[in-house]
């Protein structure tokens, strides 16, 4: 059954990565009408007067139905208001939350995922991270915030491709994919598909492609003190057993977990289930469309610090393989 909640996408990216340019582009696209943009300062976006319909305090209403709203300190309050009664009485079709350049998107994720009332009407669609292709290597080397923004990304938009050579662009793309193999990476030519994502389009394609690509071998990449790898589980697993293992793993090692993302092949059968985790924060699982082919396996991408792939594989395989206990606990 389709999820009728309003998709909310967090847009993040380092200083100068092009977030404001992207938002300005989104505001004028016909398929993006009725977008609510939450940003630090509405004045920064430089809205064309011809589009402007009404300006009220921290809110700008555009002729095409889009609303831009300044969110200074109380994101939770603003989202609760939207969840309960959308501004102007009409629910937006999608919400885009723009973070400031140095912001850690994990704080926003924690607010959204950790407030059940928000989730009643608003669905966390994912994180879009913009990467400045000109300065990507330098930012990665000098700023840990950059790594944080990349590892939480579900979608990465490489900007300023016209200012770098094709070889350098390929290199930047490789860096991003190695650090976060679970993210979809595109440049400005893929804006249509990006808008699909902002509209709540499923990430299933990316995850299922990951499963197809990596199901037969382990991918292992190192960068600085973080490394990423894929684990494939051929046998169907029990959801409760997996959830307990994940909960325990996140409790014990949350500080060293940059990201866990993947799809599960469950004993209960049916469509694959997507799981997503950032440090201690585990998203509610989601159903994906049907499997693309005959292959059935769970594929999990881990981006971790200080924890080896062997340790994770051994632990997870051991835990999932244990026979269920014979006696249920008494109530």
């Amino acid at each position, binding site marked *: 059954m389709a999820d009728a909640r309003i998709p909310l996408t967090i847009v993040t990216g380092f200083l100068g990565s092009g977030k404001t340019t992207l938002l300005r582009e989104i505001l004028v696209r016909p398929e993006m009408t009725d977008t609510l943009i939450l940003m630090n300062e509405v004045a920064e976006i430089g809205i064309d007067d011809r589009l402007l319909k009404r300006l009220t305090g921290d809110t700008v209403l555009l002729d095409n139905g889009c609303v831009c709203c300044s969110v200074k300190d109380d994101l939770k309050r603003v989202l609760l208001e939207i969840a309960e009664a959308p501004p102007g009485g009409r629910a937006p079709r999608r919400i885009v939350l723009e973070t400031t350049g140095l912001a850690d998107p994990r704080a926003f994720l924690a607010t959204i995922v950790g407030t059940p009332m928000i989730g009643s009407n608003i669905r966390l669609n994912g994180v879009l991270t913009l990467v400045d292709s000109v300065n990507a290597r330098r930012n990665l080397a000098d700023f840990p915030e950059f790594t944080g923004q990349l590892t939480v990304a579900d979608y990465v938009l490489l900007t300023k491709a016209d200012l770098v050579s094709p070889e350098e662009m390929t290199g930047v793309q490789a860096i991003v994919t190695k650090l976060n193999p679970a993210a979809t990476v595109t440049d400005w030519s893929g804006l249509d598909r990006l808008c699909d994502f902002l509209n709540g389009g499923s990430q299933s394609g990316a995850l299922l492609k990951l499963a197809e690509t990596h199901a037969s071998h382990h991918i292992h990449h190192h960068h600085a003190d973080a490394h990423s790898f894929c684990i494939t589980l051929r046998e169907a697993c029990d959801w409760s057993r997996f959830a307990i293992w994940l909960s*325990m793993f996140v409790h014990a090692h949350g500080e060293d977990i940059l990201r866990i993302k993947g799809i599960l092949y469950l004993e209960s059968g049916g469509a694959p289930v997507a799981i997503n985790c950032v440090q201690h924060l585990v998203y*509610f699982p989601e159903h994906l469309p049907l499997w693309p082919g005959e292959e059935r396996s769970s594929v999990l991408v881990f981006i971790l610090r200080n924890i080896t792939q062997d340790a994770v594989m051994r632990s997870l395989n051991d835990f999932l393989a244990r026979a269920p206990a014979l006696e249920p606990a008494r109530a």
Partner: protein
Amino acid sequence: MCGFCGIWGAKNHWSLKSSNPGVFSAQSPVERMRERYALCAILNETLRGHRLKVRDWGGEQWIVEHVSNGSEIVDSIAAVWPAAEKLSKRRVDPLERGGGNG
């Protein structure tokens, strides 16, 4: 809130099938309790080495009980682990040999 004991109930949690009706088929009250019993069984197996037992409490919370150090009532699976560590004075870590089962 439980009308009998006044305890505020557990909230939705990502680990529960009953909290994910879009992913797992809607559960009857019997199926929900069956899920909680199954979770208890896995938790008890996991924490046996810590001399802990976990029981369902009112269909919404969990009691984590040490053989000699008392017990705690917690709202979610996530809260079981810090309670287990506090009561047993031992770390809970699935990467340790035995995967958390001592």
